[in-house]
């Protein structure tokens, strides 16, 4: 379960201060697929960074598995991300000159997975995104859709508990985008992994169990089956059975 309560994030100081997140509250059940939607600049990415332990908002709590990750020491947050989170960023961020396998290997190396264990995991992840044949190719030689599949392979390779995807289909044509969606939702359903998608695409958002709308750094509405809103307590978001 992910509990976000009273999270506020301000950039800059004094006159230049800009509040990107204002008192965000909600709860996400394990295994749910959640869309965070809103216009550009509304604070979606900022929220995702706060929830994933990449950023530290000034106030509030992000409790994952009963642990407030905002209270953890830096190295423990790093370890938490390495072991429990899979990331798909707004851009690919692939190592262009490295091979497909080496790109997938990076999160495993960071999580200190032994070389032998890595091999099997990399094979499985590449298989899941149908890129096994490209394992030895350089990342830069892949097509856009293949690159995004590689990014997904990198996100799932260490069997994370939560996957954060920032605009996973933003750079792709609709047909390719659909394939990526299938992959993500399939992985979410089959492995019980919590999937949090940041998007401004209402169609993609509609495919998720829950939609959290963000406007000007605030939750404007939460929709979806079994979505429970309890204010001032965190808004409860349940997974569709």
């Amino acid at each position, binding site marked *: 379960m992910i509990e976000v309560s009273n999270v506020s994030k301000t950039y800059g100081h004094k006159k230049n201060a800009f509040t990107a997140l204002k008192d965000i509250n909600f709860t996400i059940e394990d295994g749910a697929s959640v869309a965070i939607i809103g216009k550009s600049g509304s604070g979606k990415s900022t929220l995702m960074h706060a929830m994933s332990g990449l950023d530290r908002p000034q106030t509030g709590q992000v409790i994952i598995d009963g642990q407030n990750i905002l209270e953890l020491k830096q190295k423990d947050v790093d370890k938490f991300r*390495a072991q429990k989170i899979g990331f798909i960023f707004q851009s690919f961020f692939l190592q262009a000159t490295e091979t497909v396998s080496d790109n997938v290997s990076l999160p495993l190396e960071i999580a200190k997975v032994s070389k032998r264990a890595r091999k099997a995991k990399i094979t499985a992840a590449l298989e899941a995104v149908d890129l096994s044949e490209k394992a030895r190719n350089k990342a830069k030689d892949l097509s856009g859709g293949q690159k995004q599949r590689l990014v997904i392979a990198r996100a799932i390779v260490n069997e994370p508990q939560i996957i954060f995807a920032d605009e996973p289909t933003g750079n792709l044509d609709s047909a390719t985008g659909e394939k990526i969606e299938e992959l993500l939702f399939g992985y979410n359903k089959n492995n019980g992994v919590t999937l949090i998608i940041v998007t401004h695409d209402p169609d993609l958002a509609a495919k998720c169990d829950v939609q959290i709308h963000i406007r000007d750094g605030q939750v404007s509405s939460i929709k979806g089956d079994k979505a429970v809103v309890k204010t001032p307590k965190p808004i409860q978001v349940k997974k569709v059975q």
Partner: protein
Amino acid sequence: MKLRDTVRRAGRSLRQAKARTLLTSLAIGVGAFTITLSLAAGAGGKQYAADIVNTNTNPRELYVQPKQEQQGDPSAPKEYSEAPTINYGGGFSLKTFQQKDINAMKELGNVQSVTPVYNVSAKYVTRPGEKKYTVGVEAYLGTVKQEYAAGAGPKGQADGVILTDAYAKALGFASPQKAVGQVVDVVIATPLGETKTYPLTITGVTKKSALSALTGSGGLQVQNDKVADMYKFANTGTPLENSFIAATVLAKDESNVKTLKQQLTDKGFDAQTAEDLMGFIFQFINVLQGILLGFGALAVLTSIFGIVNTQYISVLERTQQIGLMKALGMRRRDVGRLFKIEAAWIGFLGGAIGSGFAAFVSVIGNPVISEALSLGKTKLLIVEPLSVVIVIVGLMLVSVVAGILPARKASKLDPIEALRTE
């Protein structure tokens, strides 16, 4: 990230920027080359000097001189002493040995023999039909190894003489071989102008070598008794007739030399062992090596800035990669370590290139140098494996130190900021 994976990734990043890596390494390589070569020259020089010491001096031998008074102010009154002295006037004087001093030395334990030093400046040496040349005459020492162009030492021959090939040529011999067996006349003069001619038979001609410059045996060498006789005659009527400027003391055993030196010093003599006499050579080599090492250190210092610069650029270029790694949970320390290891790799490469090239140069250069300085089979450049290892490891450490600042920059990078840059 595990150390092994970090090392592997560091190597991969460097391979991807081959030209830059190589150029930065070459800068360090220059330093490594100079340092390795100066270490090699130092090792070779010391080896060479040790050879000289061993072949040109007898480790059992001590060179003893009377302890000279502090000359100080020449106008200050000085107490009269019974000891024989040579007065130069102007208040300067030189103490000498008398037979009783020689005897005192002989009575010390551990002494095998005491030989006064008879060095004579002959009026001239010549042979019929040739010009006259001034020359120094000294005792032939069987313990000193010499390179002969022809012939050999005088051995038992009382009127035998060895001369250098330069004198043989000056005295009109077509070749050193032709000189052997021929007679030369050495003329000694007293201060009063009396002269005495010593006909001597050439038994050997020595080659000119770098050794002669160091050991100073550039004149004629004759049997000790012969030179003693010349000395007596040359100094007739002078304070030196029955006294000597110096003496050599031969210890019974090499292990006694140190105690013997102390005993002689206690007696009021000034004693120097072979080691003391040759010490200046080592000092000279050390100074020379120090200068070379200084140049090497300077080159390394310059290359440090090269590494800092290269690594800074590398960090800037790889902002996204670093951001990604940090976002995926790589610890600050590990990110810093990645860049320090890259720096270490550069240092290793530079050290290996530089010292490898130095080894190559010494292999090629040794015969050339030995030929030019007529050192025979002596190698002046000795690249010791240990010094290569030390140079490489040292440069790796230096590189890591140089890489600290860029590594810190990388480790402090904010992943969100880094990933925002498209």
